């Protein structure tokens, strides 16, 4: 079964550094998403992306965050200057369409630790 792949699985960085989290969505999917889960807390929506632009973003997704689809297969999340509170598991997801009965397929996540 096709799957969403994310790299790296773990990333450790110093506060203030830039990180890029990478995702390869399922190949015929058109809608891409980032979610995150801080340890012990709920999974939270960050951003959705379609047709090379952001469709929707949450309050968490401030100017420190950006997303990009640099080529036909990758979808990246960049955090410009990481803070301690950015430590979380970041999940990429993709879907073929939006609308009723559309499933989101999630990757296995990147655990980001900011020291």
């Amino acid at each position, binding site marked *: 079964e096709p799957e*969403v792949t994310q790299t790296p699985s773990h990333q450790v960085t110093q506060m203030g550094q830039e990180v890029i989290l990478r995702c390869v969505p399922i190949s015929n999917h058109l*809608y891409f*998403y980032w*979610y995150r889960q801080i340890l012990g*807390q*709920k*999974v*939270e*929506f960050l951003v*959705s992306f379609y047709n090379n632009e952001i*469709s*929707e973003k*949450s309050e968490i997704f401030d100017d420190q965050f950006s997303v990009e689809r640099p080529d036909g297969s990758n979808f990246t999340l960049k955090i410009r200057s990481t803070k301690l509170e950015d430590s979380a598991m970041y*999940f990429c*997801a993709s*879907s073929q369409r*939006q*609308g*009723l*009965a*559309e*499933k*989101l*397929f*999630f*990757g*296995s*996540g990147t655990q980001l630790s900011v020291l």
Partner: protein
Amino acid sequence: ELKVEQNPLFLSMQEGKNYTIYCNYSTTSDRLYWYRQDPGKSLESLFVLLSNGAVKQEGRLMASLDTKARLSTLHITAAVHDLSATYFCAVDKSNGNKLVFGAGTILRVKS
């Protein structure tokens, strides 16, 4: 603001027993999802419930949706150890796959 509440948050049950996980949400939505997460793994889609009265079953799991009560249930029948995982419900806030998740229910099935 849409809130999604699950209970219980932790459930320890014996193999062979039945139990129900509840998911309440605060504003109208016609799309509710159930996901399973194994430790360190991704979120696996279990069910998508689209309308009032929807019921879906897969193996020992059955999910239902009551949009009037803003309540979904995930019923476990004759639990087995392999069902041990964290189960999340999520509601689509905007029909754009902007999901609001519950806190998750950690299920441990003891043999």
